[in-house]
């Protein structure tokens, strides 16, 4: 059966953070995490292939606790296995380290036909994980796929090319990156969700923890990047408040729009 690996990352929910431009500080008022939206879409793409043709979908994550929440949600959506990479030093893994770890995971799984990754991260906008992995594996890459079909050792995808959409084909195995909002991810199945959290119906066995030290040497776990701080945009000025009744406000807005659009 075809194996599809989907890396799932988590991202701090921006609804809980405030970037204060005047104080030039970041306030984290509520520390809540989401599945990276593009990764969420990537999982949905994998699950649709599984629904159509049958496949084993393996979700992999390697970020610090409470990362298992991410994987638990992945399992509840329909992933067959979820692998959590842990280990001292691994929590600082950047995209380059994570790509190496994923390669090692795929080798330990005895290969995969397809890796589907979110195209960019919501917070930093970096899109290098999938393509670094493609290079490490020596596999072809399809970037920004809006739809993916895979069968008989061949992949067909639709991606944007300038203003149009084109159909592309590649041989498997391959790495595909999916943009956020390419499609709407399904909601987790209620019964599966309960089973995942209770660890029943084989779900406890589906959630595996692998030690990163078994996959990568200490040198291989060293991140390439160093953070050198933050910067903030200039403070925005508040706009003009429209006074008067709602009707008058409507007329004033119409006039402003007309001027702006030179109607």
């Amino acid at each position, binding site marked *: 059966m075809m194996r599809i690996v989907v890396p799932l990352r988590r991202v701090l929910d*921006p609804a809980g953070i405030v970037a204060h431009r005047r104080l030039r500080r970041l306030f984290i008022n509520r520390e809540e995490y989401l599945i990276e939206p593009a990764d969420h879409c990537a999982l949905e793409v994998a699950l649709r292939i599984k629904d159509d043709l049958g496949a084993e979908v393996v979700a992999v994550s390697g970020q610090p606790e409470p990362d298992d929440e991410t994987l638990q949600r992945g399992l509840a959506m329909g992933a067959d296995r979820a692998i959590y990479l842990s280990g001292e030093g691994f929590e600082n893994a950047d995209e380059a380290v994570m790509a190496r770890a994923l390669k090692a995971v795929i080798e330990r799984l005895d290969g995969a036909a397809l890796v589907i990754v979110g195209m960019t991260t919501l917070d930093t906008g970096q899109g290098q994980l999938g393509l670094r992995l*493609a290079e490490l594996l020596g596999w072809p*890459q399809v970037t920004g796929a809006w739809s993916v079909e895979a069968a008989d050792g061949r992949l067909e995808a639709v991606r944007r090319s300038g203003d149009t959409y084109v159909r592309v084909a590649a041989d498997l195995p391959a790495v595909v990156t999916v943009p956020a*909002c390419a499609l709407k991810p399904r909601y987790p199945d209620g019964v599966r969700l309960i089973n995942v959290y209770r660890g029943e119906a084989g779900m406890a066995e589906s959630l595996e923890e692998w030690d990163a030290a078994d996959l990568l040497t200490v040198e291989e776990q060293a991140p390439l990047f160093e953070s050198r701080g*933050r910067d903030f945009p200039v403070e925005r000025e508040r706009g003009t408040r*429209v006074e008067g009744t709602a009707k008058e406000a409507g007329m004033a*807005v119409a006039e402003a729009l007309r001027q702006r659009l030179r109607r």
Partner: protein
Amino acid sequence: MDASYLDLMMAQQEEVFEEAEGGGGVWLVADLSGDEIAPVTLEAIGAARTLADSLGAYVYAVLLGDGVTPLAQTLYQAGADGVRIADHVGLADFAVAPYLDVLAGLFEEEQPEIVLFGASDAGQALAPRLAQRMGGGLIEHVTAVTLEETTRAVEATFPVYGGEYFEVRACPEARPQVLTIEPGAFGEPFLDEYRKGEPTTLDVEPVEPAVRVQGPADGFEPPEVSLSEASVVVAGGRQADSFELVERLAERLGAQLAGDRGAWDAGFIGAEQIVDVRGATVSPEVYVAVGIRGDTFHNAAIEGAKFVVAIHPDPDATIFEMADLCVEARPEEVLPSLLETLE
């Protein structure tokens, strides 16, 4: 006024660049926009020039394509000290495998210190693979660069959450340092028409692309118009009262209809119409937000809008922090008179 004598004076000081020997240097991979050098490439040359001048290095540009040799002079005019050209029919259309093969072969030999790409589709597809192949670091969507002169590491700034704030990163050890330059972040350099050079043509034999383009995606339903390119956007939210009025306003203004994630949850719009850093980031001339409270995701996505009108009953709604024109009222009370006046 006849200024031809100035041309004559300048022509006498025409600069012809002789390339320096040896590795290193700041390299950039040129992007094409139709038959011309893409603006982002010219902007990247400006950034490369700044870095190279601080490092005491040269700026080299690589141009790949079919029939692209005449474009080399534009790269010299923008500030490149040397240009390498891979002009081959096999490079006529962008594909990762042949382009990467040519670039990796060249850079293995030249051992660049810094490599810049434009953050275009091609640049974003090539840069990670090149960085990985050469063991280099990569920072994407860079909007500003400074140099740490002791380590010669580039400190690159890039937007986080669509520009809510910025993060500064560096790759202190990995070389080359690969960056993708965000379009519009750096100014376009002055094209000095007296700056000229002799490009070096590379002898290349491109490999076959691993991903084959089969043609237009017939049967695939794309989003109607790309929201991110719309010049007028009318967006509704959960508190829009009547989405029909929002649709009428969009129609009246000839605008693209959109919404926030709440409108999508309520079923008013499709996934491709979500204005949100997870969905579409917009930069229209006019953006009208009707009944949108304006969470961080949404507000970051309209950062590029030139003129924002917000209509929301709650005076504390965060959308007003983004708006040029703030209407603190229920949309159902404002929209009828707004539509009537427009009609």
